[in-house]
């Protein structure tokens, strides 16, 4: 079977993304069932990275829609280029409105925004809808037509249907509950913190110069730090930063002192740093 989850994992690995079995299987399903994937998980575990790696792995173009509060149709779907339309009208001065109208509402004057662009694209694309939990519930509805039927309705032009179905990845940091309708249309993938083995491999893949013993140490330490009750536990991107920092400092062996000194790379809150410093200092010999 050359198209199974193992093939997906191998393709992603080629782009430096190490997918575990679950990620590979869900991506495989998404490709087979042609359904969007909703990826959820703490910040920095590689949600956006997954979409980028997918695009790279299959040689597709990546189209990204960054969501934010206040995102609307004209930024997500399409907008008429009214300045160009005005120019055209001025150039056509004297012609009857009936003649001009179909002219200025043609595709030529349509500014495609990411969703429409993904639908219209003749070559296969990966559509990344990033941080979808940031848009309001009402705006979410805008996505539904695109995600279930892969089409966009433009009143003046009619319905534009996708040439080939794009592969869609939505990411969410879970700051609010997404609507049932949206969730129903997607496959759900929760990416959590990796196991020690996987984290070590990720570190080695992302920071190739890293010695294996150091990668192992970092992965074990980070796992241990995550077990503390923290406001923001370190995620993969932070442990990669940490690995780079240690490498830069020429450290080959992490001890409690070095760890304490570089904690600010790993943790972003004072209270968290203090808590871990304390626990690193607390262990006397034999403790």
């Amino acid at each position, binding site marked *: 079977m050359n198209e199974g989850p193992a093939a997906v994992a191998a393709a992603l690995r080629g782009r430096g993304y190490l997918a575990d079995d*679950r990620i590979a299987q869900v991506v495989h399903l998404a490709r087979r*069932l042609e359904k969007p994937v909703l990826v959820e998980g703490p910040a920095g575990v590689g949600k956006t990275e997954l979409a980028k790696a997918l695009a790279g792995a299959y040689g597709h173009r990546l189209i990204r829609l960054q969501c934010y509060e206040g995102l609307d149709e004209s930024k997500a779907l399409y907008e008429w280029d009214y300045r160009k339309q005005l120019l055209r009208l001025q150039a056509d001065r004297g012609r009857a409105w009936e003649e001009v109208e179909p002219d200025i509402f043609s595709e030529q004057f349509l500014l495609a925004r990411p969703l429409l662009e993904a639908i219209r694209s003749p070559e296969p694309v990966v559509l990344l809808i990033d941080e979808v939990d940031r848009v309001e519930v009402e705006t979410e509805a805008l996505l539904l037509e695109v995600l279930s039927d892969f089409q966009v309705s433009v009143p003046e032009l009619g319905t534009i249907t996708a040439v080939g179905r794009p592969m869609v990845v939505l990411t969410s940091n879970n700051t609010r509950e997404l609507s049932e309708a949206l*969730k129903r249309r997607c496959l759900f993938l929760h990416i959590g913190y990796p196991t020690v083995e996987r984290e070590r491999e990720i570190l080695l893949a992302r920071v190739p110069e890293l010695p294996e013993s150091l990668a192992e140490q970092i992965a074990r330490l980070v796992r241990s730090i995550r077990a503390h009750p923290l406001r923001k536990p370190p995620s993969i991107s932070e442990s990669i930063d940490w690995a780079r920092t240690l490498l830069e400092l020429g450290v080959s062996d992490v001890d409690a002192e070095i760890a304490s000194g570089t904690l600010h790379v790993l943790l972003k809150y004072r*209270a968290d740093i203090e808590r871990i410093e304390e626990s690193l200092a607390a*262990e006397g010999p034999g*403790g």
Partner: protein
Amino acid sequence: MLITGFIAELRSSGIPVSMVEAIDAARALRHTDLSDREMVRASLGATLVKDARHWDAFETAFEVYFGLRAPGPGAAATRDGADAALIGGFGGGAAGEADLDALVDALFRALRDEDDALLQAVVRRAVAGLSGWEPGRPVGGAYYLYRILRRLDVDSVRARLLDQASSPGFSPLEERLAVEELDLQIESFRSRLRAEIRARLVADRGAGLVAATLRRPLVEDVELSTATREELAAVERAVHPLSRRLAVRLARRRRRGRVGRLDVRRTVRRSLSFGGVPADPRFRPPRPGKPEIVLLCDVSGSVSAFARFTMQLVFSLSSQFSRVRSFAFVDAVAEVTGFFGPGADFGEALQRLGSEARVVGFDGHSDYGAVFGQFVEHHLDAVTPRSTVIVTGDARNNYHDPNLPAFERIAGAARALYWLDPERHPFWDTGDSVIGRYAPLCDRVIEVRNLRQLEAFVEQVALPVARPVRRAG
């Protein structure tokens, strides 16, 4: 069919699974390597569970419905033989003392060498030989698990492994990591035991029955006053993200909606581009007032868990209120606002509350009447016409005087007064509960037994639009 039973089980544990999702799951299985359990788990998880909070419930149901089935008798005999060979020293049959020693030793070796196959053999052998299995007995797995762990004496195995783990060349940090990892390994041994026991239970009594025994309420439905310690821990973990979500939602709702007053300066300036015609009026952003909250929480025995989550939720939302003051009481009332300063650790704050705040005056039994009397006497200035007072407690007054006049003065001073009762509605006004006497003086009395209801209530109180108009009198 297995899959329909499985979906029915998910629904009975509270996970909403729609028709479309069920169909998706079936379609997904067509593209799944069915011989690989993990792949089946991934496929079903991706199509049926759309909320990370539901994952635990899904896992439990999955283990029951797609657990490893006991093999047929022939295969079982071969496997037992293989297990015995792996473990060594087994005579077969019931485990005698020598066999027990061999098993403990095998466990030790398996954990030390991280030998997966050996560990699994130990698990099977232990469940078969040490659990004292009684077919048909309607118990969950916990009973058998306890028996096995006691017979194997896992604690002394852990101690032996610790001795080995701490070689003299280790730095303290390495040593600690080794200890932590050992504990994780032992935890994984326990969960394997649990899985094996569950598989045998399923073989014994059928999937449906076992699933029903194992079913746990979802975190948001856990009844706070009767929750176990683990359940409370799960609730506590859930409160933080919940309050974050709630804060974002509230901030958003508050900003949208109603526009503010006309901004004359900007409108005039804007009108210049229309030849002085104010064609595009500008408005100030709306600034709806934030409510002021006074919490009055009964922290005695049975209702303390509920009080503490109410406080935690309200305090983590304090940016959404103009002011929060909180008071705790049993049979005496004390202000505890200072315990929850910015950046304060909630667990520590609660401990201080227990040791420092003087909430017990006489005998440690709730006395609402006395408390309201004291409150009126010492703290009534905390309640202004802009404050919303939230009282939490079961109103079980131990047959003391309810002191309605004092309560009426509090209600009269406040903008609104809500009472959250963590007891089920049918128990209200039974025994020493006097909720019915207080109820007419409250704007609303609400049954709040779990996080879901608490979240809904807090959201409603925090939004200015949803607040009731001050009642007459």
